[in-house]
Structure formats: C-alpha cells, structure tokens
C-alpha cells in the first residue's frame, strides 16, 4: 500500500507541475494586460513603466522561474486589477461559492432522492418512465438558459425572489455568510436550484438504479414477510442502502460543482469565484486567472487522489496491478 501511495502521490505532483506549465504558458497568449491597465493616451514610457512594475518586461523563462519559486512559497502573484495577492482575491470569494455549491448539493439530494426512489419502485409505470426521461433533460439542457427562465418566472413575473446578487452578508464563526438571514436565503434559492439541476439528474439515476437493485434483495423480502409497513421499508431499509453510492458520487462531484458555478454565478451576478474568473478573463488579470486555475487543478488532483486511494484500500487488485506496472 505504501508503494502505491508513493507512486500515486508522485503522479499527482507530476500532473500539477505539467498543468502549472501549461497554464502559465497559455496565459501569455491572452492579450496584453498593459493595454487594459494603461490609460488610452499613455505614451510608450508609461506603458514600459507598467510592464516593468508587473515584471512583464523580463523573458518568459525568467518570469516562469519566478512564478514557480513564488508558487512554492504560496504566492501566486498580485492581481493586476486589485493590486492585492491573487490568492487573497480568490479566497475572499471562496465562501460565497462554497455556500452556493453546498446549497446546490442539498437541493440535488432533496430533489433527486425522492424522484429517484419513486422511479425505482415503479420503473415501468408512466411516472417512472417520465422521471427518467426528465433526468435525461436535466443532463443535457443548457443550464444557463434554465437559470434565465427561473429569473423570468420567479423574479420578473411573480416577483417572489430576487433576480441576482448575494444577500446581506453576516459573519458567523468568522466565516462571512449570507445563509442565515431570510434575505440571504432568498438570494440563494434560484442560483442553487440552477446549479443543482444537473446533479439532481445524476442523483435520480443513481437512486433509481439503487432502489431497483435493493428491492430485489432478501432483506426487503424478509422485512415484508415480517409485516413491516411499506413506509418503513422504503424510508429505513431502501433509503439507507441507496445513500452510500449517492454520497460517494456527490462527494466526487463537489469539484465539478465549483467549476459549474462559473456559469450559474454569471447568470445570477453572484459574487463568487466563478464570476471572478470570467471578470478576470475579460480584464486580462493574468495572476488571478492563473491562481484560480492552479487552485482548481490542485482541488481536482486531491479529489482524484482520495478516490483512487479509497478504491485501492477497498480493492487490493487495483494496487497490485499498479505496483507491478
């Protein structure tokens, strides 16, 4: 297991190094930030001064060396636009995105489990087929458009919920959050629902397959023979058993929810990391883009690493095959 762990860890570090190089080199093809930062009537001297201040006048390899050296010390550069460390800019937006992603997770479970179980109990009924077809739509419909339609319905026509932004933020245990006030929750509902749509479809499919499988098991037959009520069988015996795969998959999907938040946050003008990425791309704020991408790469690599290690811990065949190859 130790050999496997070391090999896998080495691979992860290699991936991070490769991605860092790719991201850094790629960012040099993204426009010239001096164009954005210098005033339109700035002469060449002023432009050179800006380039020098940002370190853009040095050769690419030197900038890259400096980037790696600083990155290893936890410094991913200063934002050109805000003139504060890029990591701070992102971390400041992190709680908003996490709040959104977690609320989205809760929603996807609240929508996905009941519908999935219902479809799994009667897979050949009209309802069951309808739910499964609906889940295909959840996978494939453009998320941003659904978000816009939700705004149109709930914010513009019914005037029940705000169209965008984040509610008043209060500090709870040192974490700035908007989830503890009615106004904040109201702002959270539509974006979280939009974000949850795709994952709900996923949960429906897993829950449906799980329910179908569990219903054939002997312990369900036994529970029935014992004369337990249908409710008790479904809520205790079925639900408990299908929660394991659901929780596993959703844990894996947390990373992709943060990535998907880019779209949702843009639709709802929600001040999270995703909106920051889009704004930074438009403003050519290279350090923030690089820092965002590096943080995302690290998050994904860590999630993958944990999954692989868990699989290896559970299934010895995986680590034996890996240790040999």
């Amino acid at each position, binding site marked *: 297991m130790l050999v496997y762990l070391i090999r896998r860890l080495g691979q992860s570090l290699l991936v991070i190094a490769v991605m860092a190089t790719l*991201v850094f080199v790629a960012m040099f093809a993204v426009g010239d930030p001096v164009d954005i930062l210098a005033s339109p009537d700035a002469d060449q001297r002023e432009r050179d001064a800006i380039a020098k201040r940002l370190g853009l006048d040095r050769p690419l390899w030197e900038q890259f060396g400096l980037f790696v050296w600083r990155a290893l010390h936890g410094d991913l550069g200063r934002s050109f636009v805000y003139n504060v460390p890029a990591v701070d800019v992102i971390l400041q937006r992190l709680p908003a995105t996490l709040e959104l992603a977690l609320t989205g997770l809760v929603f996807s479970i609240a929508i996905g489990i009941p519908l999935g179980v219902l479809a799994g109990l009667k897979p050949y009924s009209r309802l069951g087929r309808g739910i499964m077809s609906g889940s295909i739509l959840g996978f494939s*419909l453009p998320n941003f*458009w659904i978000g*816009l339609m939700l705004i149109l319905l709930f914010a513009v*026509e019914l005037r029940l919920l705000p169209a965008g932004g984040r509610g008043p933020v209060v500090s709870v245990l040192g974490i700035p959050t908007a989830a503890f006030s009615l106004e904040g929750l109201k702002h959270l509902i539509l974006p979280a629902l939009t974000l949850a749509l795709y994952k709900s479809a996923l949960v429906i499919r897993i829950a449906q397959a799980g329910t179908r499988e569990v219903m054939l098991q002997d312990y369900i037959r036994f529970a029935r023979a014992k004369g337990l009520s249908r409710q008790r069988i479904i809520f205790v015996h079925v639900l408990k058993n299908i929660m394991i795969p659901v929780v596993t998959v959703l844990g894996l999907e947390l*990373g992709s929810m943060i*990535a998907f938040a880019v779209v949702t946050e843009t639709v709802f003008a929600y001040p999270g990391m995703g909106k920051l990425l889009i704004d930074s791309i438009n403003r050519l704020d290279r350090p923030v883009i690089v820092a965002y991408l590096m943080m995302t790469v690290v998050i994904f690599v860590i999630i993958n690493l944990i999954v692989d290690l868990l699989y290896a811990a559970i299934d010895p065949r995986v680590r034996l095959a890996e240790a040999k*190859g």
Partner: protein
Amino acid sequence: MADYVRADEVAIAPEIPEPLPATVSSDRGESLLRRHIDEFLKSPGAVAGLTVLIALALIAVFAPAIAPQNPYDLSKLDIMDNVLKPGERLGSGITAFLGTDDQGRDMLSAIIYGLRISLAVGAISVVIACAIGASVGVLAAYAGGRVESVVMRIVDLQLSFPAILVALVLLAVFGRGVDKVVIALVIVQWAYYARTVRGSALVEKRREYIEAARCLALPKSRVVFRHLLPNCLPPLIVVATVQVAHAIALESTLSFLGVGVPVTEPSLGMLIAHGYNYLLSGKYWISTFPGVALVIAIVAINLVGDRLRDVLNPRLAR
C-alpha cells in the same frame, strides 16, 4: 493475389455490429441494417425526434430561403423596429412573430440563422473529435503495453477536469471565433471517444477474425482501421449522437459567457446572452425563443440517441 482478396473478404465478413447468433441469415449485412431500422422505427418518440431533427437541419441548411429577413444585412435592419413584441409588424411590413431584438432584428430570422451556426458547430466538432478520438483509442488498444497506458493516462487526466472549464480557458487563450470554438470543443471531446473505442476494441481485439487478419499478414493499419475499428462503431455511434447535443449546449454556454462565437455570427447561445439585459424589464422574448429552439434541438437529438442505444446494444436490459 486473387486468393488474397477473397480471404480478406472473409475476414471482413464479421464486420457487423453485435452479431446475434439466433438471427444469422444468409445475407446478414442487409437484414441486420433493415432490422435495426425497423427496430428504431418502433419507438414513436425516436421517430418524432428524428423528424424534428431532419426538419431543423433542413431549416438550417436553407436558412437564407426560409428566414423572413437576413439578420446580418445591416441595411435591412431598422433601429425603429427595436425590441418589438412578438406579433408586431416591422417597418418593412414583415410580421415579427417572435418579436425583435435591440437592433430591430426579427428574432425568428435570427434564430433560424443561429440554429445554422449552433448545429454546424456541434456536428463538425463531433465529427472531428470522433475521428481523432476513435483513431487514438483503437490504436492504443491495438498497440497495448506502454503506449496504451500513457495514452489512457492522458485521457483519464483530461476527463477528470470538467469540459466547461477546459473549454473556457482554451477560448480565453484562443480568442473568439467559430473555428476556435470548434477547436476547443474537439479538444475537450476527443477523450470520450478514445475511451469508448478503446473499451470495445480491447474486446474485439481477441476475436478470431482479427487473428485471421493478422495471420494473412495484412498491414497493421489495415487490420486496425478496416477490421478492428468498424467493429467498435456501435457504441461510438451512440456516444457521438448524444455528444452532438452536449456540444451544442456547451457552445451556447461558452457564447453566453462571452468567450464563444463572435458577435457577427450569433449562435443561439449568443442570442440568449443578448436578451439577458432585457429579461429583467420583462422583455422575455429575446432570450426565451432562442432557448426554446435550443431545447427542441437537444431533446430531439437525445430521443434519437436514446433509441440508438437500445437498438445497437441488444444486450442492455430493456
């Protein structure tokens, strides 16, 4: 030489997707295709989806003849017509059944032209990605060993990052443009096909007909692309069909985020993004109708893809 050709044809003979032992007939190729078609036509939903899809494709191809107005011709646009409600008449006498946008463009015409770009981007990117991915996948499976493990590592790595994020960054680097969107979509999609094809190629590789083809000393490229690849097609066709819908949705999302197609060639996603600013003041039609067109296209493709999965994979539980 003549013997060779005949032997080769014998080796090609099993190039039939998923041969079912129970239904072997004398002219297998013909009857299998016909049976697949019959099977496909049994589902009313799939037939409806296919009909809609063909209709949309025809509309897209003949857009200039069908659209009431050329939405790109600025001389035909009148700013006085801007943001008209659905059903109002333009200055030029055309009725704007779906309203107009902020530049006085008839939405129906804009959607017809937008559909053209959305469908073309989706289909072209899938065809290219499919060709690249399938070749890589089948070669990796045939080569085996170190080549295979390196290629599949790259595939796994790429699939572990969400497509939307990769495409977003690529387009931030490339800049806007229809061709650039296609390139970005190809880059994020090829790995799906590589994985799909490799999976089925690993199974097919061990079949007798491959062994036979190798015993005939056929060139490797011929064994891989004429014998192995055709037998890996059924799952690939299913993945590719559904993937067209994903590509269209992805393109519209990227265009909505402002990194996709340029303003001069608005796809459906771009039209929706345009209407975003007007949505809050209750001018719903600019964003809603292009979205409806997008949804119709995506649902139709999914209905067809779903049925293809059932037809081409008889072993799946039905």
